[in-house]
Every structure is written in structure tokens, then in C-alpha cells.
């Protein structure tokens, strides 16, 4: 599913922000990505949702070498990846419904199917009464739930989330974690970056620990899954 071999990343001619990262995530596995601020968690997530390419080393996603991918191959790969951004990145002039529906529209889903799935999911995350509301009129927690709904609506093979519970109360945080676990049970590989040690301890999934751009714990293929 995900395989990194000695991957390093640098932006432009700057210093490397990730050094010789190697790990593998088996299909259907669930991992937390932990580490202090500036450890390189966000860059690693960008690498995995194809926002940056490795400066060196090899990244293999869904059985394909990312460095060898043509630009035209990227959209199809990205549709298999759901991303929850730390800053939500909702489109401000679109309603909650249209924000969540966007991945389905890009995938060519039909209107009736989109309406049904998006409505159900927004109700599930507790936003059934905010379907036509624009992000500016939603609280931080509500925006985060819309962002999560958008990330999972197309049933991605790989779900990447950057601090997905950072702006919600404990009740909603637990509910969102259960949503991620449900998706994981359906076969989605999940990687969640978080500072929330309590959450990590409570759910007990394996951890990737980054510090100073280096991976301190490294799950081997035998450990994952």
C-alpha cells in the first residue's frame, strides 16, 4: 500500500526536512504519526498525498513508484487518497454539501448518488442541519467535520489526517475517531498525525514517531496490518 525507502525531501534548494525515511504501511492498517512541532509530520503527509515528490529515495503508493508517475497519472492516484488538512481548506463560497460532494463530482458520480451519500454523511457527523451553510458560518469544529466528511466521502484507499480532532470537543473527537475506525474496518489504510497523546493511548494503534525529520520508530512489514 505505502512503501518508503530512504526517502528525503527538501523544498527548492533549502535543507532537507525529511531524512532517509523508510517504512511500510500494509493495506488496512491504522497508524498514528506523532512527534513535536517541526518534526516533519506535515511534510511526510504532503509526500503521501502527492503534494510534493521525494528529493531522493523511493516512494511507492498502491504498487506504483511515485517518482516514475507522469503528471497525467496523479489525479487518479489522488482520488484514492482522502486528506484532512489541519487548516481544513474548505472552499469558502461553497456550502457544506458542495464541499463534501466535490470529490464525488470529480470522480464522476451521478447527482442522485452524490445527494444521498453526502446528506447521510453530513448527518452522521452531526451536520444534518447545516447542509447548505457556508464554511464562514460554521464553527471551527463544524468546519473540521465538513473537512473530514470530504476526505472520507469517496471511500479512499488511504486516509491521511493532520490533527483531525484538534478543534472539536472530546465527544465529537471520539465520534470522528470511530468514523476513522469504521473506515479502517472497511479496508481503508489510515494515518493520523496528532499531538493528542491521550487519543493515541486510548486507541492503541501503532505509531510512527518523527523528530528532526527522522523516523524514530519504524514499523516493519511484519508489524503492520
Amino acid at each position, binding site marked *: 500500500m505505502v512503501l518508503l525507502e530512504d526517502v528525503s525531501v527538501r523544498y527548492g534548494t533549502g535543507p532537507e526536512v525529511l531524512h532517509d525515511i523508510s517504512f511500510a504501511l500494509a493495506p488496512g492498517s491504522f497508524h498514528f504519526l506523532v512527534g513535536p512541532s517541526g518534526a516533519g509530520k506535515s511534510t511526510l503527509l504532503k509526500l503521501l498525498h502527492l*503534494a510534493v515528490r521525494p528529493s531522493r529515495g523511493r516512494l511507492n503508493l498502491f504498487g506504483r513508484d511515485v517518482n516514475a508517475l507522469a503528471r497525467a497519472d496523479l489525479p487518479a492516484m*489522488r482520488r484514492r487518497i482522502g486528506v484532512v488538512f489541519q487548516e481544513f481548506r474548505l472552499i469558502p463560497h*461553497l456550502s457544506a454539501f458542495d464541499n463534501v460532494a466535490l*470529490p464525488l*463530482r*470529480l470522480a464522476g458520480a451521478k447527482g442522485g448518488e452524490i445527494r444521498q451519500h453526502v446528506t447521510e454523511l453530513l448527518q452522521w457527523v452531526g451536520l444534518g442541519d447545516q447542509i447548505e451553510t457556508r464554511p464562514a458560518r460554521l464553527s471551527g469544529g463544524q468546519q473540521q467535520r465538513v473537512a473530514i466528511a470530504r476526505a472520507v466521502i469517496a471511500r479512499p484507499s488511504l486516509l491521511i489526517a493532520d490533527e483531525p480532532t484538534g478543534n472539536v470537543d472530546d465527544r465529537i473527537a471520539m465520534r470522528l475517531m470511530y468514523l476513522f475506525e469504521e473506515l479502517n474496518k472497511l479496508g481503508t489504510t489510515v494515518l493520523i498525525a496528532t499531538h493528542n497523546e491521550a487519543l493515541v493511548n486510548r486507541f492503541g494503534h501503532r505509531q510512527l514517531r518523527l523528530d528532526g525529520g527522522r523516523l524514530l520508530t519504524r514499523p516493519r512489514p511484519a508489524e503492520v496490518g
Partner: protein
Amino acid sequence: MLRNDLPLGADAAARFLPWIVGTMVYLAALALASAFAVNLAIGSWRADITGELTVEVPDFGDVADTERQARLEAVVTDLLAIDGVEGAALIGPEEVRRLLEPWLGPDAAAADLPLPDLIAVTLARDAAVDLPALEAKLDETAPGLRIDDHRGWIERIDRIGTLVELLTAAVVLLVAGAAALAVVFVTRTGLDIHRQTVDLVHMLGARDGYIARLFERHALAFGFIGGILGLAAAIATISAIGLAASRAGAGLLPTVHLGLPHWVALACLPFAAAAVAMLTARWTVLRTLSRGL
């Protein structure tokens, strides 16, 4: 599928696009209409003088009017006897003065000008008349006589027509180029303004073509609106110029009226402008995005 994923219409630069395109279409329409008018005038002049000759008979000197009239009639008789000549008619002094009036003013009639006598000759269709031989033959009856087949005049106005066509093509190309540059600027500005959303939509799996379609659809609509505005202004201007010309230049300028094909060509301008805007926006977006990851 294609919704308002990008609020391009709200961008300050984009709001100018219809006015920029409108101005370009206005200029292109005026240039085209001018070229059509010149070509119509040339066609009209050419139709008037093709198949006709003008024989200029110089002043005979101190001869009586009856003698003068007899010699002129002899020339007419000689002309009518030639194969290919369908008609020959004397143009009287009053008619000559009337023809000169637009250039010399109404006082020309009173002036004591040494005006030549003129004979208008009509040739049969496809008639092949040997002008030097004809001139030599008629010279026996009226020495110093000159025949003008208007060829030099036709060649000169044809050259003018060609020049006007080339200039018009250059103006239209220049205007289209300027409009395309404006669209490139507006599109690049839109990409910069909406960079985050464009990146996000990319991350969600959008192809470059999807994003390009958002921009090209917007450029198509704004380009067409601008084109309609520009064409409407151009039609008003053309009508006003036509009215003013018909009042001011009666007799001096030929009256030309644009025909249906000309109006159809002008009506195509908004569509052409919209197509240029759309294709330019698409090219700009695809080219800009191709530089990314």
C-alpha cells in the same frame, strides 16, 4: 459537474474582461466595416466605368459652334461604326460642369474654363477594342483627341483596395492579439488569486482539464458579453458615420450600404472574440498548471 468551484466572476481583474474584449471588438468591427465600405465603393466605381470609354475632344480653337458640333458628331458617327461599340453619346457642357461641381464648387459653372468636350462610349460585353488603332483613326477627324479606358484609375483603386484589406487584417490581428494578452493577464491573475483553491481541487483529484474548463467557461461568457457590447457600440458608430457621410459628402463620396454578408461577418465578431478568450484562457491555465507537480 462544472459548478462555481472558483468564484472567478468576483475577481476585480475579471470584471474588466468584458470591457476590454468589448473595446477590441468595437475596434475590429470599425476596421472591418471600413474595409467593407471601401471595397463596396471600389466595386461601385469599377462597375460604373468597366465597359466604358471616355473620349476627350480638345478645344478646336477658333471654329464656329456649328462646325464644332459637326466635328463632334462625326467622331460619334465614326465611333458607332466600330465593332464592339454599342453606344456613343456626347456629354454636353452642362453635364460636364455638373460633374465638376463637387470638386470645383458651384462657381465652376460660371467660370470661363477651357473644358474639353466629352463623349461617353459604351462597349459591348467582352468587346476587344484596339485602343491605339481607334485613337489613331479618330485623330484624323479630331486631332489631339484622347481616349481614356480608365485602366490606370482602376489599377490605382484596386491597389488602394488591397492596401485597405491588408491594413484591416493587420488591425484585426493586432486587436485579437491584444484581447488574447488581456485574457492571459486576467487568467493568470485568477490563478494567483485562487491558487489555494486550485491546489486543493488538484489534491482532491481534479485533472488540469477540469480546472481549465472552469476558467475557459468564464472567459467564454465574459468574452461573449464583451463582444456583444462592442458590436452594439460599433453598429451605432457605423450608422452615425453613414448618416453623416450621406449628408456631408453627397456627390463627392459614393453612397455605400453594407449588405447582409457584411452584417453577418460583423455579427460573427462576438463569437470569434468569445472563442479567442476561451481558447486563450484554456491554453494559459494548462500551460501554467503544467509547471506544477
